[in-house]
């Protein structure tokens, strides 16, 4: 059998297939079921939208709360100014270090 014959036979088979599987009629339940599915998806979308709104609202409230906490004066423990060394020097005055028996150049300079 050559290529042309095989092609023709396959074409005939496809035509027979179309005839063997005609367009079926929709059942009586088709439209009610379709609308039920449409409404089910609508209510699902509405629920997701509501849930999203709740989450967005909650996130906004939390942001506001944090902003207020940060904005209230005195809520910060200490205000840091200067370098790390300055902060250390402020926290440990030379007198205290001398009392502890620590003698450094800075401590000596301060006592002099």
């Amino acid at each position: 059998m050559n290529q042309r014959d095989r092609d023709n036979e396959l074409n005939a088979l496809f035509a027979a297939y179309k005839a063997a599987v005609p367009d079926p009629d929709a059942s009586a339940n088709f439209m009610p079921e379709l609308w039920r599915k449409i409404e089910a998806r609508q209510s699902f979308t509405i629920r997701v939208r509501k849930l999203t709104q709740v989450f967005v609202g909650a996130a906004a409230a939390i942001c506001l709360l944090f902003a207020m906490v940060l904005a209230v004066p005195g809520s910060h423990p200490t205000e840091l100014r200067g370098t790390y060394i300055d902060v250390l020097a402020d926290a440990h005055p030379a007198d205290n270090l001398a009392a502890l028996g620590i003698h450094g150049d800075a401590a000596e300079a301060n006592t002099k």
Partner: protein
Amino acid sequence: MLVEFEQIQKAQAGDDAAFNQVVVAYRKRILGTIARLIGRPEDVEDVAQEVFLRLYYSLDQLRTPEVFEPWLYRLTVNASYDYLRKQRRRNESRMSDLSEQQVMMADAAAGGKVSSEEQRRKQVKELVDSLLGAVSEQDRILLTLKEVEGLSLKELEKIYRVNENALKVRLFRARQRVLNAFEASQGSAKPGEQKS
């Protein structure tokens, strides 16, 4: 077009009655296309409802009513493809269903309940379904639209949004695979025919 452009525009505007009319106008054609694309009569309505469900929720994206039909076909192709992909995952359980159906069919035939014409149709359907099994789900759909539904390359171009040459190549390869499977099936059928 099976409906007026106005009807589609009304449906786009949210008129449910107009949408209903569009569905009623197209459902028989869509049911037929799906029946031949998926090859499972019991699931045809579910897939068709999925098509119209997608249509309902995406109708507002349709720019011009002129492209409504290719667009509806694209939704049909996508829904059928999704169905076939899911089916492949459930293939094993489905195979047992099929064999059960075949047993029932054979029983009915033995009892004279099924006419010879019905049997012939069943054989053609089973043969084509098995031949189309030689190609991927995507190629099965493409080949069915071209060879069985009789859509032109221009129409397929609009549905798939790819150029004609790419479609021709895909169609040629898919058809060759089906032809090979057809030859193989004829080769295996011949000894059986000789026995009977």
